[in-house]
C-alpha cells in the first residue's frame, strides 16, 4: 500500500487566468436574437426544499405554462430523477421515439439541491427518451443550472415539442421573465457559446456567477451520443466551466428540438434559499462533515488534490483498468496518465468545486492547454478534469497514454457535446475491430484506428462533429455499429457482438467486470444501461470476498442500486458518501456502507423537508422510483430479461490472447470453480469451458436478483411488489405489468 505524496514543487506552472477569449462579436450575436415569446411570472424561493411548481415549455408551439407539483408527486417521486420519470411517462406513448415532438427533456434538481452547508448538493437529474436505448435515460450533472432553476421558482423544467429554428430559453429568476428567443447566429460549440451567453445575460461583472447555461455542441447534431454541458462560473479563473449530463444522448434530443441553449439567471446564492425546516441540524451536520474532509482527505483519497482520477493507478494495480477495449486490466504506461501526473498538471492552488459549499471540491482543471488539431487549433483552453472515466475511457481503453492528447480528446468531447464515457468505449471497439481486420483503412475512410493513435482518434471525433465520413458511423454508438458491420459482412457476428461493450444500447463505463459476477450484474441488470452509478461492487465481490453466495450478491444488487438512486432523487452527489470516511468508520458495523454518512443523508432530508425518515425509508423512497422506471422500460417494449443480456467481453475472455494473458488465473478457475483439470486441454477448449460456466452463473445471478427485487424471472415487477410500494395507485402502471404476468 502506498499513499501518493503531494509535492508542490512539481506542479506545472500555468497561468490559470490566461486562455483564448471568444467574446468578440457578442453584440452582433445578441442583435440577431429575435424574441419569439415572452411572459412574466412571479419568482419564488422554495419552502422546505420545494417550490411546488414545474415550468412546462413547448419549444414548437411556444406554449409556456406553470404546472403544480402535487403532494402525490412528492410522496412517490420525491424530485430529481423521480420527477423526470413522472413527467416523461405522462408525455409519451409506448410508440414514442426519441425524435418525436412529444418526447421531453426534463431537468429537476431535487428538494435538497442547492443546499450550501454540506458537500455535493448541487446536482440535477436530466431525463429523456434516449436515442441510443429507446427507453428513459437519466443522467446526473453538477453545475449551477439546476439549483438556480429552483431558486428561480421551479422544481423542474419540462421541455417538449420541436422548434423549426434555433432557440434559446431564458429564465430570469430575479425579474420574473421567461423568454424564448430565436438565436440564428450563435456559436455552436459549448466552450464558445456558454462564454458568450454568460456575458450576454449577466447584467454586470458581479452577476456572472448567477448565470448558468445548458448547451451542447456540433457533434450532438450528427450523432446519437450527444451530451449536455451545465455551466458554472469560476470566479478565480474568471471563466465558464462545465459539468456534463453525459449518458444516453440527451444532447442529441436537445438539438433535435433545435434548442441552442437554456439560460437561467438566478438570485445571488445564499445559505438559506431552500428555507429548510430545521436549519440548525443542516448547519451542524455540514460543520461535522467539513471537519472530516479537512482532517481525513489528505490521508485517504485526496479528492481535493486529485479528484476522481486518484483511482487510475488503483484500478491498474488490481487489474481492473480497462485496456484495449476491456481486454486487459493493466498496462505498463499507465504511470503517464495516473494521478501522480494529473496532480502536477492540474492547477492546485485554488479550490475547485462545481457547487457552493462543496468542501470535497473534486472538479479539477487543467489550464493552459494549446490545442493541436481541429477548428480551435492554436487556442489556449482550460480543460475540466480529466476525471477517472475520461482518463480510463479516452486513455487506457484506447491505448492513448499521451496526457496532452488525452486532454485534447477530453476538451473536444466537452465542447462538441459528446459523452466521454461513450466515446471512449466506442472508440476502443473501433480500434479492436481495426486490430482484428473487421475494419481497415478503406472501411474507415483512411483513418488508421490503431491502438494509441490519438491523431486518428481526434480526426474521427472532428468528423463526428462535421457529420462526415467514418466519424458519422461511429457516432451511432456501439450497438448500431455492430449491426452495420455485421450487415456488411465485415466479420464474424459472434466476435463483433462479444467485443461490442454495450447493453440496452448504452456503452459500458470504464471498469473491468470480468472477475466480479456482482459487477456484471451491476452493469447489465440496470434500468438505463451499464453505468456504474447504480451499483459498483467490484471490490466487495472480487477483492474483499464479501459476497460469496448468489443471495449475497443479490442483496447487494438490491440495496446499492436503491441507495444510489436516492442521491438522484434529491440533488446529492454520490462522491461525498464514501470518498472520505469518518476516522472511526472502521469500527462501525457494515463499515462499507459508511453508516455515519447514511445517517447524515437521513438527517439532511428530514431537516430540509420536515418529513422525518429513517435509513430504511430512504430505500423505500428509491424503490418506488426504481420499480416505476422498470415498468416504464417494459411499457416502451424493453425492460425484460432478454434486454438485460450482457456482451461476453463483460463476463469473460473472448479471445485466445486475452485468455493466455491471464492463463494462470483462468486455469485455476477451471480447477477450483468447475472441478475439472485444464491439463492437456487447448486454449480454445478451456475458453469454451469458461464461457459455459460464466454465462451459466450470470443467468443464475439474474434469477437471484430478480427474486430479491420482487420481480418475476422475466424481470417484471410483480403486482404484490407494486402494491407494497403504493404504485398500484397508478392504473396505467398496473396495466403494463399485467400484460407480462
Amino acid at each position, binding site marked *: *500500500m502506498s499513499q501518493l505524496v503531494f509535492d508542490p514543487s512539481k506542479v506545472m506552472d500555468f497561468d490559470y487566468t490566461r486562455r483564448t477569449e471568444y467574446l468578440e462579436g457578442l453584440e452582433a450575436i445578441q442583435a440577431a436574437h429575435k424574441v419569439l415569446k415572452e411572459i412574466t411570472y412571479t419568482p419564488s424561493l422554495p419552502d422546505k426544499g420545494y417550490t411546488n411548481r414545474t415550468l412546462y415549455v413547448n419549444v414548437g408551439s411556444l406554449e409556456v405554462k406553470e404546472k403544480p407539483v402535487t403532494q402525490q408527486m412528492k410522496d412517490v417521486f420525491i424530485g430529481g430523477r423521480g420527477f423526470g420519470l413522472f413527467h416523461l411517462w405522462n408525455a409519451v406513448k409506448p410508440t414514442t421515439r426519441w425524435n418525436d415532438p412529444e418526447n421531453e427533456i426534463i431537468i429537476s434538481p431535487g428538494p435538497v439541491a442547492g443546499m450550501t452547508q454540506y458537500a455535493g448538493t448541487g446536482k440535477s437529474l436530466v431525463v429523456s427518451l434516449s436515442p441510443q436505448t429507446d427507453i428513459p435515460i437519466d443522467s446526473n450533472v453538477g453545475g449551477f443550472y439546476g439549483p438556480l432553476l429552483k431558486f428561480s421558482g421551479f422544481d423542474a423544467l419540462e421541455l417538449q415539442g420541436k422548434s423549426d429554428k434555433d432557440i434559446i430559453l431564458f429564465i430570469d429568476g430575479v425579474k420574473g421573465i421567461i423568454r424564448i428567443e430565436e438565436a440564428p447566429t450563435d456559436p455552436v460549440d459549448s466552450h464558445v457559446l456558454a462564454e458568450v451567453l454568460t456575458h450576454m445575460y449577466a447584467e454586470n461583472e458581479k452577476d456572472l456567477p448567477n448565470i448558468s447555461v445548458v448547451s451542447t455542441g456540433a457533434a450532438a447534431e450528427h450523432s446519437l451520443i450527444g451530451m449536455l454541458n451545465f455551466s458554472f462560473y469560476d470566479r478565480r479563473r474568471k471563466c465558464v466551466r462545465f459539468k456534463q449530463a453525459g449518458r444516453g444522448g440527451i444532447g442529441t434530443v436537445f438539438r433535435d428540438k433545435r434548442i441552442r441553449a437554456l439560460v437561467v439567471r438566478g438570485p445571488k446564492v445564499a445559505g438559506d434559499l431552500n428555507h429548510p425546516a430545521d436549519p440548525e441540524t443542516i448547519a451542524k451536520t455540514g460543520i461535522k462533515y467539513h471537519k472530516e474532509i479537512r482532517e481525513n482527505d489528505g490521508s485517504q*483519497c485526496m479528492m481535493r488534490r486529485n479528484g476522481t482520477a486518484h483511482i487510475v493507478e*488503483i484500478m491498474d494495480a*488490481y487489474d481492473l483498468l480497462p485496456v484495449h477495449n476491456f481486454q486487459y486490466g493493466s498496462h505498463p504506461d499507465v504511470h503517464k496518465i495516473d494521478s501522480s501526473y494529473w496532480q502536477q498538471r492540474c492547477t492546485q492552488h485554488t479550490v475547485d468545486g462545481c457547487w457552493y459549499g462543496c468542501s470535497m471540491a473534486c472538479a479539477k482543471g487543467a489550464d493552459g492547454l494549446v490545442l493541436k488539431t481541429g477548428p480551435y487549433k492554436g487556442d489556449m483552453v482550460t480543460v475540466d478534469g480529466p476525471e477517472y472515466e475520461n482518463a480510463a475511457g479516452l486513455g487506457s481503453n484506447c491505448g492513448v497514454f499521451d496526457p496532452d492528447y488525452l486532454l485534447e480528446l477530453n476538451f473536444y468531447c466537452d465542447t462538441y457535446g459528446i459523452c466521454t464515457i461513450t466515446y471512449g468505449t466506442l472508440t476502443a471497439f473501433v480500434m479492436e475491430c481495426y486490430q482484428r481486420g473487421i475494419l481497415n483503412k478503406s472501411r474507415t475512410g483512411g483513418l488508421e484506428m490503431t491502438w494509441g493513435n490519438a491523431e486518428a482518434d481526434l480526426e474521427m471525433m472532428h468528423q463526428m462533429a462535421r457529420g462526415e465520413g467514418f466519424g458519422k458511423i461511429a457516432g451511432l454508438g456501439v450497438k448500431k455499429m455492430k449491426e452495420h458491420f455485421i450487415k456488411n459482412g465485415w466479420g464474424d457476428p459472434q466476435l463483433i457482438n462479444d467485443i461490442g461493450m454495450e447493453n440496452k444500447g448504452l456503452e459500458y463505463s470504464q471498469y473491468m467486470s470480468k472477475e466480479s459476477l456482482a459487477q456484471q450484474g451491476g452493469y447489465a441488470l440496470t434500468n438505463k444501461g451499464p453505468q456504474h452509478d447504480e451499483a*459498483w461492487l467490484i471490490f466487495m465481490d472480487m477483492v*474483499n470476498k464479501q459476497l460469496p453466495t448468489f443471495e449475497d450478491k443479490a442483496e447487494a444488487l438490491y440495496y446499492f442500486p436503491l441507495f444510489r438512486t436516492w442521491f438522484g432523487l434529491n440533488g446529492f452527489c454520490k462522491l461525498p458518501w464514501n470518498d472520505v470516511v469518518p476516522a472511526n468508520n472502521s469500527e462501525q458495523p457494515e463499515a462499507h456502507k459508511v453508516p455515519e454518512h447514511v445517517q447524515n443523508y437521513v438527517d439532511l432530508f428530514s431537516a430540509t423537508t420536515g418529513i422525518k425518515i429513517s435509513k430504511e425509508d430512504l430505500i423505500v423512497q428509491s424503490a418506488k422510483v426504481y420499480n416505476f422506471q422498470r415498468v416504464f422500460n417494459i411499457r416502451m417494449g424493453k425492460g425484460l430479461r432478454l434486454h438485460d443480456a450482457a456482451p461476453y467481453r463483460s463476463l469473460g475472455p473472448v479471445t485466445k490472447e486475452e485468455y493466455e494473458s491471464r492463463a494462470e488465473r483462468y486455469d485455476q478457475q477451471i480447477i477450483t470453480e468447475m472441478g475439472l483439470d485444464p491439463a492437456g486441454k487447448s486454449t480454445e477448449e478451456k475458453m469454451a469451458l469458461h464461457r459455459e460456466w460464466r454465462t451459466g452463473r450470470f443467468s443464475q445471478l439474474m434469477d437471484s436478483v430478480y427474486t430479491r427485487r420482487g420481480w418475476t424471472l422475466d424481470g417484471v415487477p410483480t403486482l404484490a411488489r407494486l402494491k407494497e410500494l403504493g404504485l398500484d395507485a397508478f392504473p396505467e402502471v398496473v396495466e403494463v405489468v399485467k400484460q407480462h404476468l
Partner: protein
Amino acid sequence: MILVNEEPLDWRAGMTVRDVLSARNYRFPLLVIHVNGALVQKQDYDTTTIPDGAVVKVIHLISGG
C-alpha cells in the same frame, strides 16, 4: 500459511499487516483490516504481526464513481 480474503498466502515469522498488503499489492488507502476478528488500526499496520494460520480480512471501502 494464512488466509487473506479467503485466499492462501505464505506465512513467515514477523510478518506484519503492512507486509500482507505489500504481498497482495493492496494499494487503496481506505481499508478496514481484521486479523482473526480483531480490528487493526491504520497506525498499527507496521507493528501488528500476523500469527501463522491467521484469517485476515482486508475490506476495501471503494465503490466507484
